[in-house]
């Protein structure tokens, strides 16, 4: 009698497939969010398996802040081709132009907060009822209490005190008109799980994750990549360094780490030895002790 033991990665993958299929089955109009980051990439590849040999039965949506790394856009277009899915792009610039959102004042403003407006508008415009995201519970303490099926009110808001209990593997996606869900199939994955999975399944990832030489400058304790939207202030020095990115968000708030890790094996060794969380390099989380919780309440992922 064989024991039918499954490794933890196999169990996490089976769980994620189950959750993605539940989303497709329970909602008429789901959408999958693509951020360019490794988590949303892994989610997209797991989704491909969930519906194999068919195609993913819902579109991929990218919230384009206009502050993307060019590598992210290149990868996005390649991925959409490979998966054969429809791409929906929602633009923060357009939200600003329409007067729905206002650019932060100051030098090299972040558009992180503005994304929320664009996201909510796009969900409403396309009448998407459920948005799949690559969020993980290990990322940040407010996420540790997030559900797989996270209910959002008519304004896209999250009420941490009024979440539906989730028992066994029963996900309750019932809702009133206008309400929505965020769904997190990778809830139980850790950063290490994601990297190991990428290596195991040989999933291609954007070159930004591997070490490369880049012009950077030091700001708020982070190395930011010099670009159209990150330009040096008079006192700032542009340096050329061998760096890579642990997470990929906007140019304005994603810090690079000095690293020579140029292969997945090397990245995994680096992650295993890391003493700082990946979000430690994110300026957006540093603003207050409850920064993430506050952003989630208004509709951020």
């Amino acid at each position, binding site marked *: 009698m064989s024991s039918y033991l499954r490794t933890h990665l196999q169990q996490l993958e089976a769980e994620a497939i189950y959750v993605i299929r539940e989303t497709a089955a329970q909602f008429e109009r789901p959408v999958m969010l693509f951020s360019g980051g490794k988590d949303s990439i892994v989610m997209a590849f797991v989704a491909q398996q969930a519906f194999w040999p068919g195609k993913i039965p819902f579109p991929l949506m990218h919230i384009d802040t206009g502050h993307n790394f060019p590598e992210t856009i290149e990868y996005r277009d390649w991925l959409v081709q490979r998966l054969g899915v429809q791409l929906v792009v929602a633009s923060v610039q357009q939200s600003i132009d329409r007067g729905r959102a206002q650019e932060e004042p100051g030098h090299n403003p972040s558009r992180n907060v503005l994304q929320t407006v664009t996201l909510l508008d796009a969900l409403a415009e396309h009448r998407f009822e459920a948005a799949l995201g690559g969020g993980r519970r290990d990322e940040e303490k407010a996420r540790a*209490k997030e559900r797989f099926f996270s209910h959002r009110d008519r304004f896209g808001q999250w009420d*941490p005190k009024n979440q539906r209990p*989730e028992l066994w593997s*029963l996900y309750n996606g*019932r809702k009133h008109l206008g309400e929505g869900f965020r769904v997190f199939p990778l809830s139980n994955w850790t950063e290490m799980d994601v990297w*190991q999975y990428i290596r195991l399944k040989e999933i291609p990832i954007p070159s930004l994750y591997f070490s490369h030489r880049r012009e950077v400058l030091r700001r708020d304790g982070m190395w930011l990549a010099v670009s159209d939207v990150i330009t040096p202030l008079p006192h700032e020095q542009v340096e050329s360094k061998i760096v890579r990115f642990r997470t990929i968000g906007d140019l304005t708030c994603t810090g690079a780490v000095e690293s020579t890790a140029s292969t997945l094996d090397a990245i995994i060794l680096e992650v295993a030895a890391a003493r700082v969380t990946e979000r430690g390099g994110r300026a957006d989380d540093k603003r207050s002790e409850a920064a993430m919780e506050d952003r989630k309440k208004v509709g951020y992922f």
Partner: protein
Amino acid sequence: MTPDPYLSMDLLRFTTAGSVDDGKSTLIGRLLLDTKNIFEDQLEAVERASRLRGEDYVDLALYTDGLRAEREQRITIDVAYRFFATPKRKFIIADTPGHIQYTRNMVTGASTAELAIILIDAQKGVVTQSKRHGFIASLLQIPHVLVAVNKMDLVGYDQGVFQRIAAEYTAFASKLSAPSLTFIPISALLGDNVVQRSAAMPWYDGPSLLHHLEHVNVGASRNLVDFRFPVQMALRPSAGFRGFAGQIASGVIRPGEEVVVLPSGRASRVRSIVSYEGELAEAAAGDSVLLTLEDEIDVSRGDMIVRAGNLPQASAALQCTLCWMSEEPLNRHTPYILQHTTRQVRAHVDQLTYRIDVDTLHREPAQTLELNEIGRVRLVTTQPLYFDSYQVNRATGNFILIDPYSNNTVAAGMIRREDQEVADLTVANFSEKLATIRSSNVVWERTAISQELREQRHGHRAAVLWFTGLSGSGKSTIARLLERRLWALGCETFYLDGDNVRHGLNRDLGFSAEDRQENIRRVGEVARLAFEHGALTLCTFISPFRADRRFARSLLPEGRFLEIYVKCDLEIVKRRDPKGLYARALAGEIADFTGISSPYEEPEAAELVIESDLISAEDAVEAILAELAARGVVTG
């Protein structure tokens, strides 16, 4: 690439519960810190927050209490999930609040857990909440319970304190079905016995808490016997292809096997098990797969594919345990939506049998269930459900109730069985009667009154009816029914049951061949004593070995020992599995289990053979009564 232990790690999901201030958050913080799963920036954030509060030590609880409201009130108010890994295993902690009004969170955390850590403050000892946590762990059928006696540093690492708490809790837990109970003395604050064995408690020779977590048997709650495949959706990517997507709830399946689709009852065979990485030769509980069938039959979401020879139960009336999770109390007039596997049906609570006081375990009458209350109910559904009892199969025995107006999840449910109200009541009365018989010490008094005199008074002859057969074949069911009939006829009866003697008389025995032999020897002797007192003695024992049964027979006069072979096909008893034992045996959890890993030697010359897979228990009783009459034991 070097072989990476990461790719062979398994997974343990566990839940933690404790009263406010038992040190639960500190323990989790300690586990994460000592296994290097807290990062510097997280630690810095905690240090910063501790300083802000004016504390002179790093309050690890600040790390785990995630939401602002919790940090302000300093209590955990929602289930939080934490992760850590050692080279052996990845752990998912459902960190649940122990605060009184949050029982619903504990139930939530327990629903996916394979192990529960219950924290007890060594200074306070076993308190009401420790018992409540144990009760919920048992209710949700968590296979392993680990009681961590915390704050040992504050009681001078006193062995006596630990032992008293362990003894008291063991006594309490014996009232529950807690399959495995382990006690470890720790100090979460100082790290004693958390990751490393502590030098401060040389009297403790067990493993550290982490060592226990790393080595406890995982997958014990998986049912690998009953194939159940709730269909999530049908996929039709091309004209010629139809596949059914789902996660296998329990059991194992291979291409070529005969299956039945419920509720339609249409039969087919599995053509292939499709995955992205190619077709699979086999898939098991927990795997997310796509099945294709040989025949074009209609299958859609909410249907269940099962193996032809192993069907679940089907009923629209269910006896269940409900945990109420909503501020809105249970309303018996609300047509709730019941979500079971991938299916939703309408259901209402037809009867609230009783509410359980989770502190005293007492049953009390109730009109409704309020937030955090637990009760036994009868549910009636608009369409039959296909289920197994929660005890046998967690995956197909659970459900939630959804309020049709608010759409909120309002209750968690566990199916006990199909509702058979009347049968239920008679069994309860009968147990009381049986208890009276058992406690009657007349049976045990040695007197000079002869067996013949006793038989004269009783109006029947004495005999030993020895029921043998596989576990789950129906021995006890038939014997109990028979005893009731004999009792009604005015007979003096005595009943020896395999499970019961192992709780007391033979508690020191295991299941090796030697121990089984001793088990039967003792029982045989007791049966003879009862016989000498003129009783019709009913013995229900698997008694798999011929030699042992021959020994029991040798203790009695010719013609007074009736061997009754309750014969049932092994596949059928595996499917019935009323105590969930076959599933555990097949999972390798129970050694020397008759029929699975230990042989059963069929009787060669039984006085009576009852084929329990062919006839009902009632008919079996009639057959035995006829046999007793024919032998002149009772008068027809």
